[in-house]
């Protein structure tokens, strides 16, 4: 830690200096704090408030408090005949919501697993000395640099059923026997989403893992090689344990990012119930179906899920609060 700290042999002048530094630190922090309150804290609080009201897009200023009605609400009606019917409403009993939750989890787990494995492979390659390493590192940055909307469109074109090059390639290689509408067919749309997201995110994963790999001192490998340890054993027994902290941070970070996915799903497979995620369904309710309150309830639930995960990230990732990740 490089900040200037008071020493035991403090003189009054030194104490005054430290107090002055702390005071100016808070002055320096004020613009950021005020900005974050305006653009983040307040909108978040209002979104949570809307989730407890019957707000709609046009009439949100007159939104009425309805408690947890958007989340769960049951009403029992007694008919004239004496029979009773109970209706349950709210996000927590909404099949479409749970479908979106399932899609999000499915997508998150599968894509992050694939991205970690492939990212690890690419990172190991980039960590080796070979001719053309610079070109490979530059090339893998390309998918990362392409805007998500653009990659969704590019892949939408490549995965097109009649004109797409992927079908052509797979037909030529006899992997498939007929053309598949990857994005439009409900059976394949999730595969398409996972594939495109993996393509786009492996570079990021690889670079984070590579940063971890480069922290491993070379003499560790040298010692292992002198002792004649098999490379695969070296990986499992030496490399993996040493990069585990970096790997954990990368995985949890990616998972958080995957669970809030919006653009790719929204553009590549619009209106597919097989891929609709929590972010997509929540925005759809707010702005397309004019149920601002109901959609806010969904976005609040997503927020709570991610809050729990961020807390886990802080604990497992051993984040160093002096700034930076260890």
């Amino acid at each position, binding site marked *: 830690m490089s900040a200037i700290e008071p020493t035991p042999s403090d003189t009054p002048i030194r104490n005054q200096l430290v107090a002055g530094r702390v005071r100016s630190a808070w002055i320096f922090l004020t613009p950021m704090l005020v900005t*974050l309150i305006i653009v983040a804290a307040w909108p978040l609080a209002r979104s949570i408030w809307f989730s407890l009201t019957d707000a709609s897009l046009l009439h949100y200023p007159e939104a009425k408090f309805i408690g947890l009605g958007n989340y769960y609400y049951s009403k029992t009606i007694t008919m004239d005949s004496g029979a009773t019917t109970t209706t349950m409403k709210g996000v927590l009993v909404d099949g479409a919501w749970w479908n979106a939750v399932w899609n999000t989890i499915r997508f998150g787990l599968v894509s992050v697993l694939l991205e970690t494995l492939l990212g690890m492979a690419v990172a190991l390659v980039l960590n080796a000395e070979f001719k053309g390493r610079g070109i490979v590192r530059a090339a893998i940055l390309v998918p990362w640099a392409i805007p998500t909307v653009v990659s969704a469109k590019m892949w939408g074109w490549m995965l097109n059923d009649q004109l797409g090059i992927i079908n052509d390639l797979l037909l030529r290689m006899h992997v498939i026997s007929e053309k598949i509408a990857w994005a439009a067919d409900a059976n394949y749309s999730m595969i398409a989403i996972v594939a495109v997201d993996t393509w786009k995110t492996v570079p*990021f994963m690889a670079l984070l893992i590579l940063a971890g790999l480069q922290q491993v001192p070379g003499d560790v490998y040298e010692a292992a090689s002198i002792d004649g340890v098999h490379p695969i054993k070296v990986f499992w027994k030496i490399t993996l344990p040493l990069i585990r902290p970096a790997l954990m941070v990368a995985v949890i970070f990616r998972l958080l990012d995957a669970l809030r996915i919006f653009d790719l799903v929204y553009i590549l497979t619009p209106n597919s119930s097989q891929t609709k995620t929590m972010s997509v369904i929540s925005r759809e309710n707010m702005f397309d179906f004019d149920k601002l309150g109901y959609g806010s309830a969904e976005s609040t639930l997503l927020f709570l899920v991610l809050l729990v995960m961020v807390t886990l990230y802080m604990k497992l990732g051993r984040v160093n609060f002096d700034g930076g990740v260890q």
Partner: protein
Amino acid sequence: MKKPWYQVTAFYAFVIFVVVQAVFPFYYAIITSFKSGTALFEITYLPTTFSLQNYYDVLFKGNGTFLQNLWNSVWVASVTVVVALFIGTTAAYALSRVKFRGRGVLLMTILGVSMFPQVAVLAGLFEVIQGLGIYNTDWSLIFSYTIFTLPFTVWVLTTFMRDLPVELEEAAIVDGATPWVIVTKIFLPLMWPALVTTGLLAFIAAWNEYLFALTFTASNNAARTVPVGIALLSGSDSHEIPWGLIMAASVLVTVPLIVLVLIFQKKIIAGLTAGGVKG
């Protein structure tokens, strides 16, 4: 130790696969963008025709909407970055160089905000943006993008500043320099590389953003940014997706990014791993 030939071959085969899969989609977008008319309906792996018709159409037809979108993107991303760097630098100085109570919690909160699901603030932002009267203008985007550019900037700059030698600052304090002088006269000149990297990453994030742009500007052609513009591109015939146009537009908005990323490769990798942030 010489490796057997089959291991070397397998290694290079994997390397080639990694490179080809990474660049092929963009290559394919480029060759598609040069095709027009019926050439679009033939699947080819190598460029066959060279026509700039798609580029001409996307730039100059449709009343210059796409040019307007491009300009909006540049404007929104630039202003967002300048604001974030301006507010972020002083905050990062306080967070990295001064020890005070609550610093850990503050840093944790900032990291938390940068991992926020954007949809969680969407309804509240909508209300604030309506209240400020900036709905359907590019100001709504500059306002809302600060939610991810600012925490990211503060976080990365804090990690950069933490590593600057403490002696510099001590010498300045002995000479009676105020914190403001320390930041502007001593740290800022040393911070340029970090500011460029952070600014670039924040610029890319703002350039690529879709959810806020779709929600806050989609009903106003003149305020849209390119991601929304591309997503909403439609041809003269509403039943047919204008793939040639879309690919030309995609190439136009991506080439500057790829050039920037390749030029600043090393810095970007350093910034990404410091911030642990996806663009």
